[in-house]
């Protein structure tokens, strides 16, 4: 294989992998703290994509500026999903189990409702937003690097680092980590656990708000687009180590690069199957994921 093509594939893989990792951050955070597998993760990204799209159509706001709306909007949606839909379940089950398994089914229901409401409201047509910024590709040697993807990649790294720092240093961050490590002990020491849960869910969703705006310029927007990213996010999170923020990015990069290189040898759709094989293999060797604590 031509080394230029190979390095090209690595660059493409890193870019898309970083974006996968960034999208998966919220899922990882929510699972790490609430022990809830949020099946509606992709659907929330889909909502954010549509929010960015409609803001451009109705208000003429460039997708990159729409961040100031989509991030708080998705925070609100996430906060509401947790406090209205999931919280009663956690309250009911808290005495019985530590990991509310039925929350998985509940969020699966949320996913079905959101996706089908979107289909009803927006129709099945493919849409795409356009940015008014001129974003010519950057040349990395002979390899053109797509600017909107590079921005997405950069945002994933910045959000991961920023979030880790925030969790470490702020009062709310410490409260979130306390709840994650032991819910009952945290409650006993006076932490408002339901609020921490809702804020965590909100933050997880607001990251999707950011990526909705950043991806809207190059991802075709349909009501089903969330599923594609949702499933990828699960793989990325489990691969990287559940609850680990750097693990989420690393998992994304591994999947992205692996698929980009494998696609050069087999049809691109078969490469996705191979990446699931890689996923099984890594988990056989390291059941807690690449960056997870054993």
């Amino acid at each position: 294989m031509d080394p230029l093509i190979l390095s090209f594939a690595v660059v493409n893989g890193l870019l898309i992998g970083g974006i996968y990792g960034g999208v998966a951050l919220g899922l990882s955070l929510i699972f790490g703290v609430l022990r809830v597998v949020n099946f509606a993760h992709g659907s929330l990204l889909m909502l954010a994509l549509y929010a960015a799209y409609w803001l451009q159509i109705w208000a003429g706001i460039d997708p990159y500026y729409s961040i100031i709306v989509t991030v708080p909007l998705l925070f609100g949606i996430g906060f509401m999903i947790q406090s209205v839909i999931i919280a009663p379940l956690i309250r009911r089950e808290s005495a019985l189990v530590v990991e509310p398994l039925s929350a998985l089914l509940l969020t699966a229901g949320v996913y079905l409702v959101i996706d089908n409401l979107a289909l009803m409201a927006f129709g099945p047509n493919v849409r795409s937003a356009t940015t008014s910024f001129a974003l010519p590709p950057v040349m990395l040697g002979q390899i053109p690097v797509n600017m909107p993807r590079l921005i997405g990649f950069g945002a994933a790294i910045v959000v991961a680092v920023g979030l880790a720092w925030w969790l470490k240093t702020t009062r709310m961050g410490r409260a979130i980590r306390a709840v994650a490590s032991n819910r009952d002990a945290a409650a006993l020491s006076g932490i408002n656990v339901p609020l921490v849960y809702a804020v965590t869910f909100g933050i997880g969703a607001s990251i999707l708000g950011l990526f909705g705006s950043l991806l809207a310029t190059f991802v075709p927007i349909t009501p089903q687009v969330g599923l594609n990213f949702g499933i990828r996010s699960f793989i990325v999170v489990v691969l990287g180590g559940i609850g680990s923020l750097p693990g989420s990015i690393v998992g994304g990069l591994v999947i992205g690069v692996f698929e980009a290189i494998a696609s050069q040898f087999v049809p691109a759709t078969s490469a996705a199957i191979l990446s699931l094989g890689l996923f099984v293999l890594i988990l056989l060797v390291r059941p807690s994921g690449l960056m997870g604590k054993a």
Partner: protein
Amino acid sequence: MISGFTRRGVIGTAASLMLIGAAQAQSEVTIGLVLPLSGGSAAVGQQYRTGISIAVDQINAAGGIKAMNGAKLKAVFGDTQSKPDVGVSETERLITRENVAIVGGAFNSAVSFPASEVAERYKTPWVTVGSVKDEITERNYKYVFRINNKATYDAREQIDAMDLLKKETGKGPKTIAMFYEGSDWGRSHAANVRKIAKERGYDIVLDEAAPPNQVDFSAQLLKIRASKADALIVAFYTPDHLLLTRQMYEQRLDIPYGVHSVGGGTEDPSFYKAVPPQAVAYYFVQEDRQVDALQGTRHPEYDDLETKFKAALNYDVSAYGAQGFSLMYVIKDALERSASADRDKIRDALSKTDITSGPAMYVGYRRIKFDENGQNTFANGAISQNLGGQRLTVWPAESRAPTTKPAWPVPAWSERK
């Protein structure tokens, strides 16, 4: 649902009249049209519907079907959502519930193929519009017709254009990469290109399919780059064609003898609204209809169609709009000769179709005459190249305007302004 109720009432009446006997006068002939009015091909479906509706209005305003005492045409639309299963059930609904005399559809080959089978089973004439999958008119069916090209013709025209330009300039591609959508249309086209390219001495260096509605083509574009192909043949519907074209533009992927699209997205005017003009410069497009044919001589008889179409959709009549318009005049021609809404009589009349003039020829074929499999063997398309923001015919040579100078080989991205 009131309109649906009365419509059913009208058709019920029409059906009972039909039972009484064909000799009796009929006030209306119901024509079913199964089209992608939503989903990936929705934009195309709207163009068909617009062309069809204009033709129906014209025919009715001009006194309907004269052989049937001025019976009016009535178009009933079914939405396939661009999906085979929905298309099949819509076809069945139109035939059994709406009691249509004839069905037209369905643009997407993956839909037309099974849906026409349903029509055959119900002994209802089916006129294929837009779909090119060869096998649609290769099944020895009695009720299935197709006015436009089949995939073999499309593929042959694409290679013919390369051969022509090679002959004219002494330069041309040796290797071809193929990248196409993985459903019936794309695969059928790829199989034909594979066969014809081999006969003409071209090497296929990449042969890659992609399932519909992708979000990223980076990996596949890299494969095309790695294959160092001289020319690229693509077959995609609008959404994926948009993604492909945008990403090729972003990546500055040079193909010395150009991108040769077999239509789909690149014949859809809404496609051109969504991509920057630089991204589609020098594209070769296999057109269902010579797009620049109407620029020279004016045909006042089409003013009505052209103004109404533009008013409805805000762009000039597309190949799809023209096909829809032409379809209704082909059906009208058959009805004038069958003098009945009886499905078998219409079938017999259709099979004897031989049109060489009139509005049915708007679509630009030499003649409309079906072979024993229902294929119009006189269909032909044209190959255009996007030069200075316009698609100008370069093949066949006799249709090329004297002012059209094909860019061959096409300029590299670095040499473009």
